């Protein structure tokens, strides 16, 4: 994917080219802000850091957008964008030498019309699965976040993680298997 070398800063472009680049970037931003934020949130475990990470991801994306577009050959840029967020999340933990300070929260997905008992039971199960997810190896957890929170297919996840399609399929299969086993051990 892209790095800082050979990159054209948006500000150095011809004005017409920059206007077109900005238009396309605005579209990317509009289409994928929720994806990047969701990924960041489930990755770092709290809203404050997720906001920082999302902002940094879009700033980096803006800087490298011209090159990424040229190299994408018309393929969707979502995996590239998520890869930026993924790398930033890795740096986030490396720099601060920490894992999420607070346990990963789920976004209260139980509909209100469920009975009280079912709601409590359902929340407990979701808490369990989130807790188990949080303890998975990083690559397995990230692949599951991309699959279930962002709805990415294997090919997109492979591009975001820099792996082959086959390796990604195996990764996801093993991640689900591990979660099933750990849930059954409860």
């Amino acid at each position, binding site marked *: 994917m892209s790095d800082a070398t050979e990159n054209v800063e*948006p*500000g*150095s472009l*011809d*004005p*017409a080219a*920059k*206007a*077109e680049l*900005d*238009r396309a*970037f*605005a*579209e990317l*931003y*509009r289409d994928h*802000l*929720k*994806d990047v*934020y*969701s990924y960041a*949130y*489930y990755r770092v475990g709290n*809203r404050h850091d997720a*906001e920082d990470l*999302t*902002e940094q991801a*879009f*700033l980096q994306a*803006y800087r490298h957008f011209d090159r990424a577009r040229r190299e994408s050959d018309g393929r969707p840029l979502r995996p590239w964008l998520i890869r930026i967020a993924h790398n930033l999340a890795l740096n986030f933990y490396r720099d601060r030498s920490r894992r999420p300070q607070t346990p990963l929260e*789920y*976004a209260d*997905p*139980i509909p209100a019309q*469920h009975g009280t008992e*079912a709601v409590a*039971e*359902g*929340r407990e*199960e*979701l808490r*369990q*699965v*989130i807790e188990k*997810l949080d303890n998975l190896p990083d690559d397995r957890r990230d692949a*599951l*976040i991309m*699959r*279930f*929170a*962002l*709805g990415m297919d294997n090919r997109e996840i492979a591009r975001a993680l820099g792996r082959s399609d086959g390796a990604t399929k195996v990764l996801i299969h093993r991640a*689900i298997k591990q*979660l*099933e086993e750990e*849930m*059954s051990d409860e």
Partner: protein
Amino acid sequence: MSETGEKLGGSWDVERLLGDALRPIEPPERLSGRLEDTLAAVTQAAVEELSDWAEELSESELRALRDPRNWVRPVVAVGAGGIATGALLVLELRRRSRQQAKGRLRSVADRVGL
């Protein structure tokens, strides 16, 4: 068994649980505002760069500017930014940059007698 988590034949339907637990999350309003401000600042820096560029042109390429094909282009280019998501890329900055570019080019044109 609850309606959310299922044990099918003694094993958990983990995929369904994950689907329920990992819902996409709507970014807070303040994040959009913050991002737009940051990107607007980046855009502003680019506009200033464009202004510097126009300034350089006025000093180093006056001769070339006698040909209208050379000096009309930046004005048209800056005006080409009809951005659908005005909030992100700040149309106001574009309007200002267009005026700046026009003003500079007009003064250059006046100086070279066009």
